[in-house]
């Protein structure tokens, strides 16, 4: 069932491309259908999935026998969680891009090509296949930003494409070296993970692959693509970039770098944790001084992804499960924040400068956007009751066990996060100045009301973060048993578990 998410998304991309250019409504219908079908497949797969089985193989077909490459898909609780996230983000993305009128069919074709690649990465068990899906996701990102983007879109799109490609190049070198050195003539992740590579090899191969993936996860100091890319991208693309694509990177770190080279992780654990915490604090501090609404959210993404990376390198289970939960949680919350900023505010006000937004009386003009942003802001700050709280708490507990000093610093990052979120919310929606006359956009036009699709999309995302926040076991019961599967044997051994 889960595998159908991939096939349906690619089929949907093709179907969107074939809908007539002059008929955006047909394209939207196809897109909505594809997103719903993908989410439905993901949900059904999740219901049928038995977490206690560990890794469930879905498909395994010989693909290129000469190099030991199989078309093999498999899922554990981590994959299922992230597949669900992708399904939700895709549906919300379609709802929030209902107003795309320019080249609609191509827009959704690129959109679903990206989604298909993302599903593929989360479900691949073969390293080659995983890499293929990972790279398939790069090109649509470029075109989504370059064609439908805003501020400095050329620059942002190219920067994002090259950063991604450099990252995947590092991964490619590492995986080819692992293939050659292991001498197993196989790209099967399970086989490679059970091979113990020489420590000297892991010492350079691990950081190569880990950082290669972490570039896409927005690891400091390779994060600079993220704020520019997020802010230039059209709303749906920023939702996907922050919501899902950054998770690709983190997932790759966990699934490939850490399982293949656990000893390498041990050697570099402290350096990577320091980078992750730097990302948390730096991202939060920079978000504090941004003048562009989207840049605030962009840097907050860097900060929150720092928690994911910090959780991954703690080398204990609570840190890992916190990291995976944070991937899900941040995917939902970032989607929501970008939905408000990009679709609700920017598409109407035509400006993202906080100073200009301040005088627009947005609270009166669109109370729904204000409420959504306040809720999303609370979730993002890590208020109890929302998914971000339980995820970041787990990461901090894990980090406290491994590196107490850094954990305190990460806590400081959370405090700064509260400050910039409150500051931005207050400035945009609750300004000190009394509301001037009617709200109008940058060109003096009236603001159109929030559409049904936006309300639905926002409600979906808020629901998800609340449900997981109040009942985290829904996902934790999936995630935690995954670390018992043979894929993580080496990692558990290195962690002394």
């Amino acid at each position, binding site marked *: 069932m889960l595998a159908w998410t991939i096939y349906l998304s690619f089929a949907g991309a093709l179907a969107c491309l074939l809908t007539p250019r002059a008929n955006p409504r047909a394209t939207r219908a196809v897109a909505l259908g594809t997103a719903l079908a993908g989410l439905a497949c993901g949900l059904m797969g999740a219901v049928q999935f038995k977490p206690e089985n560990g890794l469930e193989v879905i498909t395994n077909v010989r*693909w*290129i026998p000469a*190099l030991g490459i199989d078309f093999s898909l498999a899922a554990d609780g981590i994959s299922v969680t992230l597949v669900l996230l992708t399904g939700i983000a895709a549906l919300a993305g379609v709802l929030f891009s209902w107003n795309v009128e320019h080249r609609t069919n191509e827009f959704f074709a690129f959109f679903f090509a990206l989604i298909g690649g993302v599903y593929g990465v989360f479900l691949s068990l073969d390293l080659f296949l995983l890499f*293929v899906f990972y790279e398939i996701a790069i*090109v649509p990102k470029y075109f989504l930003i370059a064609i439908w983007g805003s501020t400095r879109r050329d620059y942002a799109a190219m920067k994002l494409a090259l950063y991604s490609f450099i990252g995947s190049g590092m991964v*490619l070198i590492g995986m*080819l*070296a692992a*293939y*050659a050195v292991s001498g197993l003539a196989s790209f099967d992740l399970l086989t490679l993970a059970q091979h113990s590579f020489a420590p000297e090899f892991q010492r350079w191969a691990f950081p190569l692959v880990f950082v290669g993936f972490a570039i896409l996860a927005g690891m400091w100091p390779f994060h600079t693509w993220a704020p520019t890319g997020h802010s230039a991208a059209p709303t749906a693309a920023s939702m996907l970039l922050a919501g899902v694509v950054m998770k690709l990177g983190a997932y790759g770190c966990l699934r490939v770098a850490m399982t293949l080279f656990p000893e390498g992780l041990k050697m570099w654990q402290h350096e990577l944790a320091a980078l992750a915490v730097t990302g948390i604090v730096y991202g939060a501090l920079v978000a504090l001084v941004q003048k562009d609404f989207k840049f605030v959210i962009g840097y907050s993404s860097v900060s929150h992804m720092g928690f994911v990376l910090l959780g991954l390198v703690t080398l204990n289970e609570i840190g890992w499960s916190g990291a995976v939960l944070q991937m899900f949680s941040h995917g939902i919350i970032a989607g929501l924040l970008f939905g408000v900023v990009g679709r609700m505010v920017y598409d109407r006000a035509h400006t993202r400068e906080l100073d200009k937004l301040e005088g627009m009386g947005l609270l009166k003009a669109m109370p729904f956007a204000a409420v959504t942003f306040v809720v999303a802001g609370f979730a993002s700050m890590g208020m109890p009751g929302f998914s971000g709280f339980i995820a970041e708490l787990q990461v901090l507990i894990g980090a406290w066990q491994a590196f107490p000093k850094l954990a305190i610093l990460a806590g400081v990052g959370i405090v700064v996060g509260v400050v910039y979120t409150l500051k931005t919310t207050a400035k945009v929606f609750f300004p000190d100045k009394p509301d001037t006359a009617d709200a109008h956009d940058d060109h003096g036009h009236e603001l159109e009301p929030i559409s049904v699709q936006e309300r639905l999309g926002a409600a979906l995302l808020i629901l998800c973060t609340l449900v997981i926040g109040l009942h985290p076991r829904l996902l934790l019961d999936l995630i935690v048993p995954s670390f018992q599967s043979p894929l993580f044997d080496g990692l558990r051994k290195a962690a002394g578990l």
Partner: protein
Amino acid sequence: MNTADYLALFSALAPEVIVVLTALLVLAADLLGLQDTPRSYRMSIASGLTTVGCAGAVGWMFLNPTVGNWHGGMFVIDPLNEVVKAVILLLTVFTAMLSTEAKFTRHCGEYFALLLLATVGMMVLASTEDLLMVFASLELVSLSLYILVAFDKSSRASAEAALKYFLFGGMSAAFLLFGFSLLYGLTGTTHVPRMAYKIFTLGPDPLATVALVMVVIGFGFKIAAVPFHLWAPDAYQGAPLPCAAFIASGSKVASFFVFAKVVLLGFSQLGWGNDNAAASGWIPLLSVVAAISMVLGNLAAIRQTSVRRLLAYSAIAHAGYMLIGFFALGGEAFASLLFYVTTYALTTIGAFGVLGVVEAQVGGDQLKDFAGLSRRAPVLAACLMVFLLSLAGIPPLAGFFGKFYLFAAALTNESQSLPFLWLVILGVAMSCVSLYYYLQVLKQAFVVEADANARPLAVPFLAHAVVVLLAAAVILLGCMPGWLLDTLHQAIGELGW
């Protein structure tokens, strides 16, 4: 020698004979019967005959699979060179189809006859193991190509390109001949495998190294590797488009195949006199050539505004990648190299096909001439995207698997010390650079809007068909590389390399 020998040789040479007869037929038909008919009619007849002749030659090879060795390696038929010859004939057919609509010449018969003669040269080149025959057939190829480059008599650029190509080519032929004569002097034979044995018994000899350098210079010119590449950008730019496509595809395949044969089989035992006899003497030389070709080709391509020159520099860079294949072990070297060069040739000829339509309809090959291509010719633009992304090495296209296999093959040779890791790293890094300039072209085609008065392009049916067919082939070979790979492996397995 008796006459029966010649009869056997004649039947073994049947595919070549068919192509020669077709050349004569095309010439005769055009000169004797069709002089008064319109040019488009003559072009169609000549191109049709060429297609039929090449198809006949391929058909003959399929129906009469022969294996044999005539006159001590002068002419050899084995499964591998049959595959190579089939590829060359296929590329000739595509070139002929692309030429059908061309308007640069009134000498239709001569044009196609020369194309076929060049093809015969390449076929013989692929099926000989004797240095004399290598040289003679290489000259046949080169002389035909010199004339083809100069075929646009109304264009100064064409004449200049041909002169440059000729002067460089003549020089390199001199080097090659000098190298061959040294080899003959040293070993007393012109037969490559026997020569290899003699070089082995000779031990380290400076003269053999000099001969190697001469041979590398000679072939380096044919494959446009740095520093023997100077002719390529001008020839690609000035030559009539189908000729440039043929130089970039057919000529590359044949030259690389015979280069690999001479170096890998002939110089396999050229040692440096140290204990490590396995490290062949050509490795340092070729790794330097590969490295500077990749770096210079890719960096120079960034600066180009003419798409033809861009393709020329990318061809130089790809020659560098292909040289990495030489460092794989035994048969893997041939398999990875031939897979790469075949897919590269198909991709390049497709890219030239798109370029040809744009040149004919828009009037130039500058980047800006591609603006809005996705609106003006959607199918063509989509195919262009396939070709360029394949050249950049994005999965699931053929170019990705080609690179992947090439790098994997080079790394698995002596996999414990990974001596060629630096070349692979350089290759991957340079692929990232190449994505930048390929995206520049695609940005014009997909992102930039065309002028307000730009009309849809009238794409000739044949060009459309060729381009779509090639794009489909690139996608299929990328998704199912096993089809070509297994053929190559099987053929190489029978040879026992």
